[in-house]
């Protein structure tokens, strides 16, 4: 590695037990065409600063552990290659989440939001003995893209609305809820929309669309949110019409 190419990574460090505020530390990293940012961070952990903390697991862009900001853009470290940063880069923890330490952020709310949207099949009493549901490739395709979310949180780090209002359920959670709403086997839409079609739900989104841009799995949360808004608006209009009809009906009854 002595004659390997090297570049400079400035990595945010923060130990809450010692430091008043986070700060950047420059590190020299050897790299070749295959070196990912995660490899770079692991090199630091192994050889330079064993006390650097970051999350990682699969190193193949499917577990969603290693999200960080690279030059202010949310990325999976394992799917980011140093060959694209030969002039160096700044590595920071995911934006919009509280920092626990170094590159590790607190994901508690994010997990709670996923849970709040009831991401499981509701209202289908079929039992294994009755065999699988039929679902055509067309029906599968309706929700398939939205089932690709790996819960990495990059879309939350990209979302300006989540940055302003941490109560916003956010792109991934809504996408996962929407995925079930679109699934031909599910009948839980009515339960989910009570949480989804609210001020902290889809109506917090101002359609910047940056969430879809940074999504490493092309789950397209922006599209999910837009579809939800359209449905929410339609159901609002329908409910007004129904309400009007009901009123007229009850008026009629009185008369």
């Amino acid at each position, binding site marked *: 590695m002595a004659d390997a190419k090297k570049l400079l990574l400035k990595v945010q460090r923060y130990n809450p037990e010692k430091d008043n505020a986070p700060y950047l530390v420059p590190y020299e990293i050897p790299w070749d065409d295959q070196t990912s940012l995660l490899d770079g961070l692991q090199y630091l952990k192994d050889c330079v*600063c064993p006390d650097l903390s970051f999350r990682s697991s699969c190193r193949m862009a499917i*577990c969603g552990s290693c999200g960080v900001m690279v030059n202010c853009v949310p990325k999976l470290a394992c799917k980011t290659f140093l060959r694209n940063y030969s002039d160096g880069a700044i590595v920071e923890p995911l934006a919009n989440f509280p920092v626990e330490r170094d590159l590790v952020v607190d*994901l508690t709310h994010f997990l709670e939001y*996923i849970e709040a949207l009831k991401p499981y099949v509701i209202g*289908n009493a079929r039992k294994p003995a009755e065999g699988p549901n039929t679902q*055509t490739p067309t029906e599968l395709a309706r929700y398939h893209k939205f089932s690709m979310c790996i819960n990495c949180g990059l879309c939350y780090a990209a979302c300006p609305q989540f940055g302003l209002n941490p109560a916003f359920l956010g792109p991934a959670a809504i996408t996962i809820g929407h995925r079930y709403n679109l699934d031909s086997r599910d009948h839980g839409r009515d339960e989910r929309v009570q949480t989804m079609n609210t001020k902290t739900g889809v109506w917090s989104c101002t359609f910047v669309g940056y969430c879809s841009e940074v999504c490493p799995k092309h789950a397209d949360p922006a599209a999910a949110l837009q579809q939800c808004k359209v449905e929410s608006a339609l159901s609002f209009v329908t409910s007004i019409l129904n309400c009007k009809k009901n009123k007229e009906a009850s008026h009629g009854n009185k008369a």
Partner: protein
Amino acid sequence: MQTLNFDIAIIGGGGSGLRAAIAAAETSPGLNIALVSKVYPMRSHTVAAEGGSAAVWQDNDSLELHFSDTVSGGDWLCEQDVVEYFVQNCTREMIQMEQWGCPWSRNPDGSIAVRNFGGMKVPRTWFAADKTGFHMLHTLFQTSLKYPQIRRLDEHFILDLLEEDGRAAGVVALNMIEGELLQIRAGAVVFATGGAGRVYRYNTNASIVTGDGMSIAYRRGVALRDMEFVQYHPTGLPGSGILITEASRGEGGLMLNKNGYRYLQDYGLGPETPMGQPKPKFMELGPRDKVSQAFWHEWRAGRMVSTPHGDVSLLDIRHLGKEKILERLPFIRELSMQYMSIDPINDPIPVRPTAHYTMGGIATDKNCETSIKGLFAVGECSSIGMHGANRLGSNSLAELLVFGEAAGRWAAQRSKEGVKVSPTALDAQADDTESRFKTILQQKGKEKWVTIRNEMGLSMEEGCGIYRSEELMRNTVDKLAELQDRVRNVGVVDSASVFNTDVLNLIEISYGLNVAEAMAHSAIERRESRGAHQRLDEDYQQRDDENFLKHSLAYYNKDAAPRIEYESVKITKLQPAKRVYGAEGASQDNKNKEKGNG
């Protein structure tokens, strides 16, 4: 130290842990269940499984065929009653997953599609494109959120088991974010902690797959069974070891050497099948051990392609065409493009065998319970006797479900029997664990865990790789003993309590060393060749049923080499026979059929 009380504590939030939690919650809704994991459940290594999950489905398939494929695939070292239970329950579990929302790939009429897999006589591998593990894990995780009685303890790292009178009574865990220890008491404990592939340098496994549960159970006196059988997956990416699914071959991919020759035909898997017409149990659809062994021979003969990241063979899927690759193998394409800068639509993928799966593990009975009453083990960390000497691809995802369900149910039952605990005795054990942890946290020394990890990985590869010899295994055994001494001199640099992965890496590597020792000693004692354990020593190149149709049992011996014992294999229906594939296998099948008909 804080104490939490549960009825069941499940350790590990991957496929088997989640399935166990759901089963316990469904069969015994009144129980409080802790789901403890050192990562968020969706980060667990189940997520990286690609190709699919086995269950008899087509009309031309049968439970008998799945049974015999599994038992012969395991070179007759499988517990046959366990395999029988397994094949009987796979289909129900796959349908259950469907009803929980798993997006299984479908035929045009909306029915479930199945694909070919290595060593399977009939297509029976259910799949969700080539992200089956990902979809299964997320389906299970999301479904688990339905049950308020399942309480997740995410990012909690297990330090030890609590025991009372030879009965499991809970665990001690470190809350990684707070840096505080926690006593988790429970009437039953389920280890679903995954494999130990990271004891090898070059492997397909996530960095978290470090053998934690295996090591804790082992140190507590439970045997690790059949640890010498470590699966090399034939197709990992050079350099990183990232998995390229066997489904690539199931869909019709070819394995080529540097001359473009389909070399598998020379290793008992031929004759060559026509391109685009994969034939079960022939050529590229051979079992993983045989396909990896064929690579080794070709490599030794100098017929592989040299690359900066080692010699590789070529996996060619170009003839499948863009449309099929995008529909069936989109992740493989993405991985090849990202990590190798190769688009498999246009170029073959360079691959080589890489350590993938531990067939052995924590010995359990057929109800997933270990020799410590109330301690269950399930999934890759366990050895229930499913896989024998070689696991068939797509049997492990199915195992997670079938035995995850069983483990959850049995653990619930055991928990309801109640456990008489003396709180003071458990407190004393937990305090002892805490003081040992604090000692490690302050450990001083010149060694670095990274050196220990690298030397262990290299040594395991050299001594316990695809082919093994007395001399090489002896070197590995000696090296591991040396590393056991040296690991005590690793200095811990990080003194912080919040997310201190310096100390956790050290503990994981210590866990790994125990598991590696069990593997190496079990391997050197097995003086025969069977399944994934192939010896180069002249006298041991054949299977030896007379002496070694037995499970190995490795027992922990403090500060000394593990004690290796043996136990018999349960054979019910399928008597040991020659294990053959390709034309020879087909002719054996025909003879058996005639015999059966006669």
